């Protein structure tokens, strides 16, 4: 059974330029202990969607349902939400500095999180903080708890963030681009830490990223977002090797995959639509090489393909011919 169910999530912002429809009917489920990859290009609504799960999008107009263990978080009261945030759903944000307090020692910040939810003394909380830092691979954790955020490198700060998000052993960890600002070798360290924590604690992870490489490495299931909606949902291999949606295809053929040294890339032409005036019908239609008449009139529903876990919001037949897939190219 799904641990977390997001159903027809809608989030919009009223701005002077018009209503920004950042998330337009997003649905997915997260199974306990699994990793869901949420992938899409800049502005596709990934951050807004995951922030809305714990109702951190203030000033937004929100609709739909976000059900954690039978409770709809979108209608929960503040007190219930406080119980959920941190304790049941941990979050790592895109920018680590924005969520670490610069003037407090790292250890103190972790202790505060623990003590806000548990009846536990300073010394015990401090020991837990040091344990957590050790767990995410910070050397000499007993002394580093006394350091301030600026005394850590970018990769270490990101690991401190993971330690904080994991402090209360949440069932769900939402990680919004946790490694985007990091170098590849440091990214590998951080992803390795997340993988090991997941094994140890059975945490379910929602991994938000624009990097299909990160998705290929660690997602069990993938949701591809475009213009605030899911274009395609599928288990990882299914998505990479048997994708259906032309947008997914475009993302994959844009990549210099395994670098066949020459050969042109096949990027998607044009750029994404404004979220203030999303075209009627399929949002991808203006850029889609397969678009036909119906596409720009009626929005396609998420159709189920041969694998019942695979859905694609596209009018093309389920057995449509595709550009050579990654598998055939390999």
């Amino acid at each position, binding site marked *: 059974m799904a641990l977390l169910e997001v159903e027809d999530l809608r989030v919009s912002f009223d701005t002077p330029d018009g209503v920004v429809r950042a998330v337009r009917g997003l649905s997915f489920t997260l199974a306990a202990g699994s990793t869901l990859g949420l992938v899409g290009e800049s502005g596709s609504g990934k951050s807004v969607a995951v922030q809305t799960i714990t109702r951190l999008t203030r000033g937004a107009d929100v609709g739909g349902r976000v059900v954690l263990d039978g409770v709809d978080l979108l209608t929960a009261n503040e007190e219930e939400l406080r119980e959920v945030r941190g304790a049941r759903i941990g979050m790592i944000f895109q920018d680590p500095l924005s969520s670490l307090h610069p003037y407090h020692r790292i250890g103190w910040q972790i202790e505060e999180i623990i003590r806000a939810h548990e009846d536990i003394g300073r010394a015990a909380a401090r020991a837990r903080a040091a344990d957590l830092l050790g767990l995410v691979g910070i050397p000499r954790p007993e002394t580093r708890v006394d350091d301030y955020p600026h005394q850590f490198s970018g990769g270490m700060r990101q690991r401190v963030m993971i330690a904080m998000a994991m402090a209360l052993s949440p069932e769900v960890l939402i990680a919004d681009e946790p490694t985007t600002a990091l170098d*590849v070798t440091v990214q590998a360290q951080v992803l390795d830490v997340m993988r090991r924590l997941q094994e140890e604690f059975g945490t379910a992870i929602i991994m938000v990223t624009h990097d299909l490489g990160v998705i290929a490495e660690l997602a069990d299931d993938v949701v591809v977002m475009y213009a605030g909606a899911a274009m395609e949902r599928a288990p990882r291999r299914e998505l990479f090797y048997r994708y259906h949606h032309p947008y997914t295809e475009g993302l994959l053929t844009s990549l210099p995959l395994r670098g066949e040294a020459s050969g042109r890339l096949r990027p998607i032409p044009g750029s994404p639509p404004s979220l203030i005036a999303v075209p009627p019908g399929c949002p991808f239609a203006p850029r889609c090489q397969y678009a036909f008449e119906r596409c720009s009139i009626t929005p396609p529903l998420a159709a189920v393909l041969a694998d019942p876990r695979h859905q694609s919001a596209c009018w093309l037949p389920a057995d449509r011919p595709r550009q050579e897939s990654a*598998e055939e190219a390999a």
Partner: protein
Amino acid sequence: MDTEPLLHVEGLVKEFPAGASALTGRAGGVVHAVDGVSLDVAPGETLGLVGETGCGKSTLARCVARLLEPTGGRVVFDGADITHLSGARMRPLRRNLQMIFQDPFGSLNPRRRVGAIIGDPFAIHGLGGRAVRKGRVQELMELVGLNPEHYNRFPAEFSGGQRQRIGIARALALRPRLLVCDEPVSALDVSIQGQIINLLADLRTEFGLTYVFISHDLSVVRHVSDRIAVMYLGKIVELAPSEVLFERPRHPYTRALLSAAPVADPDAADSRRRVILGGDVPSPVAPPSGCRFHPRCPKAREDCALTEPPLEPVLGDPDDHRAACWHPLQAGEDLTAAPAPLPGGVR
């Protein structure tokens, strides 16, 4: 290489004053941003430059394009020593040596119209009258895939990818021979990134352009480059033809970098054995002794901390494959099985 190189860099050094350290309160020291780099780029060739944050890629690029004056060593462009040329003496050469930058937002003046921005090089070099310039600018806009009718728009009215095209159009205005590209696609989404990479490839075919192409994205660099130089803490640690570098890396750092980069292919991702390096990149103010990679290197031995390895062919490699390592990787050697690094790392 039998042809004269278009660009010849020899023992290039660039240091910056380190400033007071917030941590220690101690003033001073020197940032060894680029520390003795030598390389050649042949006409029509694309040389890729990869490495992690702070390893000196941008500094090297800016020294080569002479937006910075090197502290030591030599930069020879098309036979002329430009290492210490003044701005005025550089100007006639500037036509042939252009740079495009990572940040398509920061590098364009928001208050100037796009036509004026792209036409700058004509104005600076006093080429053509107003009408001629406008015509040339519109040709350039068309060349890089911008709508020439948008001549009078401001940068804010363009998307990230379009702004990068504006930067490319400006750099191409005077038909340069060498284009130094510092992370030209890093800030862009993959679909837009692909458009720009194809554009650069077309321009290369059409005008025989020579590129120095910087990126921290290995798959992008592999796709565009003939040869690749891998940098670590101000030095080139390996230099080889692209495919050779990917197939048979000799330097443990190259291998670690290759194995760490995520690949958008589940089978490849699952079958790969990752080399997870410990620790972070050390400070370029006080780089480690001997081989700078030794505190993080899975193959480090005592001697590595003592003497710096030269960048040269190893294990009988041909002259165009060079690595700076005392204990280079044998073909098929498994780095993940190597002994753990020296405890704490020797400094």
